[in-house]
């Protein structure tokens, strides 16, 4: 006989839900019938390196920052949900000679990958398109299982990419993260921790960059004013396409910093280096 703290007990139950999600992913119907699911459940402080690398990349990119800030906040509040890492080797072809990868036959593809395997921003490639689709179905089943348990979840490329770089799920060419939780409603949409991260002007600039025509004045003149302030006709502002050396330099430095951290976590450097 015992009285449990309800919320703590529910939080502990998330680990069981994560396991159930994995069972669902394993039972997902596939097209190729030739994909092997790989998975890990990462909890609490074992998430620290992943969050650290993500936050570093986030210093120059809103996308990674968005997720890093949310995870850091959960860490601080002691509410870190178990993170399901789902991965698979998507490089081996289905041998259908379908052409979707860009090669006429799977034979030509196999020849190409002998010498052209490589790493992008967050995944290894090239990839068999049908394996990538099957992997999507597996991840979908995991997410659907979580929804059936009324547990928040969100497929996260950012967590997956950092996990892959940090050596989780060795042999996988793509890894995705699926936080199973936390307890609450729409927390991955309405992120409390994000409220103060970008200010109003920054948020409006993101919006403007995403759809400049929405704030475009008469375009018939050929160089339309972009309405970026209340009295937009006074000292008007225009859009300009140009190379941004400063941003590129920042990006390169930022990635170097992140990769150095990854190598440290991987034990490539001695501690005193």
């Amino acid at each position, binding site marked *: 006989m015992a009285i449990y703290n309800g919320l703590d007990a529910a939080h502990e139950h998330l680990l069981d839900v994560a396991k159930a999600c994995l069972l669902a992913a394993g039972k*997902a*119907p596939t*097209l190729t019938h030739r994909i092997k699911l790989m998975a890990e459940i990462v909890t609490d402080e074992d998430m620290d390196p992943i969050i650290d690398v993500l936050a570093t990349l986030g210093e120059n990119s809103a996308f990674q920052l968005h997720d890093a800030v949310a995870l850091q906040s959960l860490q601080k509040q002691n509410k870190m949900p178990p993170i399901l890492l789902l991965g698979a080797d*998507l490089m081996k072809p289905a*041998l*259908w*000679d*379908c*052409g*979707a*990868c*860009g*090669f*006429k036959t799977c034979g030509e593809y196999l020849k190409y*990958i002998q010498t*052209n*395997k*490589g*790493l*992008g*921003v*967050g*995944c*290894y*490639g*090239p*990839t068999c*398109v*049908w394996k*990538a*689709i*099957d*992997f*999507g*179905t*597996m*991840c*979908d*089943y995991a*997410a*659907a299982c979580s929804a059936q348990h009324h547990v928040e979840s*969100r*497929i996260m*490329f950012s967590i997956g990419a950092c996990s892959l770089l940090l050596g989780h799920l060795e042999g996988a*060419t*793509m890894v995705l993260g699926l936080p199973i939780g936390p307890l609450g409603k729409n927390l991955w949409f309405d992120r409390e921790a994000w409220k103060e991260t970008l200010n109003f002007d920054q948020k409006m600039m993101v919006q403007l960059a995403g759809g400049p025509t929405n704030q475009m004045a008469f375009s018939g003149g050929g160089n339309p004013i972009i309405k970026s302030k209340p009295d937009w006709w006074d000292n008007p502002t225009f859009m300009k396409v140009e190379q941004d050396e400063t941003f590129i330099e920042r990006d390169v430095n930022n990635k170097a910093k992140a990769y150095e951290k990854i190598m440290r976590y991987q034990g490539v450097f001695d501690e005193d280096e």
Partner: protein
Amino acid sequence: MARIHIDELPPYSPPDQAKKENVLIVAKLMVNAALTAPLTGGVPGHEAEIVYGQKEIEHVAREMERLAHKQVPKKLKKPFLYEAVMARESDVIVFLGNKRAHETPMDVGCGLCGGEPDCSFVYDRVNHFNGLIDATDRSRETAIKGPLCVLRAHDLGYVIGSAMWIAGKHFVDAKSCYSVGLAGRNLDICMKSELVVGILIAAASKNPYADIPPNYHLTNMAKQIDALRKISTITRQIPNHPYHTFDPAPKTGSGKKKEE
């Protein structure tokens, strides 16, 4: 008040048609699930089409058989032929197509397509102007015109998964197939998509998509029923006689006691 009698045999009889209407409802719900599946960045990019009716399904099955004989590699020949049989045994087919993988990549440099930290692998191999892909040349040298944005293609997996999940929740059998999707796309089903997958759906006492014997395109139940019709027609003509006036069966053993 109506009485709706439901039975799965004979195929396309009124009781079977009534059952098919139920399955059509599930197919529509599957499309809802497909369209609300989680996607990369939440970006919409999929279309769905439902094929329903004996002739409509027959067209798809025939294109699958054409592909089996004329286009796909040898190892896919039999799976395509078998799945054409399954298509004919299905009540409804849901097609799900990805509109973006061939035309509007994610442009994020993920690495999936070519293992490079940019999107050059795709853009170096397709017709484009400053990154705007011209997909108006629809001629193909392969079944699928590649290369495709693999991260976009990956999204199609979620769309299929959510549809299949709903099928399972409603206890109808479902099977997602490359063969069905390819045939459907060739017939201009989901015509905005290069990548199309077909989901066969059926409510039947025996799952039509499992327990498949060898040479199933020749040994399936429709073939067996047709064979029975063929053989029984001949067989009955051999031991014939004027049944009005003559019964060759022995009087004894008929179940009735012989009258004293």
